[in-house]
């Protein structure tokens, strides 16, 4: 991976809508060449962040840089250089794919080959997606419209592609084609920022992930690192009076704990698997299984964040 710079830099970004805080002091770097998965529940602030990055929304505080440009002052230049696929594509639906490609080419005179280059790349893309070039967009299926939107974004040969829930509600085949395009783009050193709820897909294609919750960042790091330093400990105890969380002296940080009378499931961050072995020495432990959680397990763990204080008797029984 090329680590020389950040394709996107966000510093202390804040955005409020009529008293509701959508983004709350977000700082985040998206390295060049990354496929960066932006995760979080609906309302976490992902779409607001993306709209600020594209210069479509003015932030209340903080700075952003996209491909070295300031979106709040150079929004048009950012939108010309960034490929953007929104959740619901805004397409002129009385046009055909061929017409909208020609129309969009007029706004992309600066790219490689100018407008002609844009239009010919667009036509190659819609041919590759087997889209009917001469059928009106309003007659196209949802999946086909999504592919028109992706073709418009890719035809500019962008250094950065931003996708906001691009495949929600689309069938497996279309999602697959989107993923292939992303992988292809990443293979040529371009950067992809992908906001998605499809955790299994993100897990396959992403190099980095960030998790947002309530407008704040919970984590942002290389996916390899997250997966190699997060563990699910399934512990069986000899009796009911067992610790409800890892004691402070253990070399791990609790993300989420689920409790049953003689069992505990602890999702933890730890340096490595060997560090997790320390739980075997806790009093009353009968057996320990150390598992590698999926990205979905990790996501749910951070969302729940049940962290009982380690000292004191178990007060409450959680249902796993």
């Amino acid at each position, binding site marked *: 991976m090329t680590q020389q710079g950040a394709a996107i830099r966000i510093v202390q970004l804040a955005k409020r809508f009529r008293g509701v805080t959508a983004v709350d002091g977000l700082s985040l770097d998206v390295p060049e060449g990354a*496929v960066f998965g932006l995760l979080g529940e609906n309302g976490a602030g992902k779409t607001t962040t993306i709209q600020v990055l594209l210069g479509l929304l003015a932030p209340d505080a903080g700075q952003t840089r996209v491909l070295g440009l300031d979106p709040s002052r150079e929004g048009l230049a950012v939108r010309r250089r960034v490929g953007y696929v929104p959740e619901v594509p805004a397409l002129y639906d009385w046009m055909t794919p061929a017409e909208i490609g020609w129309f969009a080419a007029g706004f992309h005179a600066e790219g490689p080959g100018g407008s002609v280059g844009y239009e010919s790349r667009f036509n190659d893309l819609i041919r590759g997606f087997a889209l009917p070039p001469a059928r009106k967009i309003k007659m196209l299926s949802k999946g086909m419209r999504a592919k028109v939107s992706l073709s418009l974004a890719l035809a500019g040969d962008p250094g950065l592609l931003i996708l906001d829930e691009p495949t929600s509600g689309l069938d497996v085949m279309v999602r697959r084609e989107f993923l*292939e395009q992303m*992988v292809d783009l990443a293979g040529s050193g371009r950067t992809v920022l992908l906001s998605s709820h499809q955790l299994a897909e993100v897990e*396959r294609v992403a190099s980095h992930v960030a998790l947002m919750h309530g407008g704040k960042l919970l984590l942002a790091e290389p996916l390899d690192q997250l997966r190699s330093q997060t563990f699910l400990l399934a512990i069986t105890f000899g009796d009911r009076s067992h610790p409800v969380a890892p004691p402070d002296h253990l070399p791990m940080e609790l993300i989420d704990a689920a409790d049953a009378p003689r069992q505990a499931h602890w999702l933890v961050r730890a340096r490595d698997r060997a560090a997790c072995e320390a739980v075997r020495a806790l009093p009353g432990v009968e057996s320990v299984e150390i598992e590698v959680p999926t990205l979905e397990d990790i996501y749910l763990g951070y969302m729940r964040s049940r962290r009982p204080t380690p000292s004191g008797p178990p007060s409450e029984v959680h249902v796993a």
Partner: protein
Amino acid sequence: MLLLGLIPGDDRAIYAQIADRVRFAVASGALRPGELVPSVRELAKQLVVNPNTVARAYRELQAEGLLDAVRGTGLSVTVEAPERCQSARHAFVRDRLRAAIDDARRSGLDPSEIERILHDQWRESGVAGQHEGGQS
């Protein structure tokens, strides 16, 4: 072109799965010494995984002396690879069986029951006649 798939139900890191699929393809003869493996971009697109993941698998295979860089063209299978990949295949099957045996013990089965299940399943898989390994 060589077709590699990931192993369903395998929860190890994807790069490790990819490295294993290449080892099996070599062990089964689907990939022979001197032949080129798919390029990083090609295989990333085929498996729909991040190109870094494929690159990491290839680095591991190079470090083990199974793949060798051919100037200007790509990575090819080394002469020593087939023999080494045979033992990698043994290690893989051993680990998978070991994991299944651990599960069986945890669920409270005794060794004779585990053995019976193993023999039954072996017979059934023989009837199905599926040869697992690299497909070309």
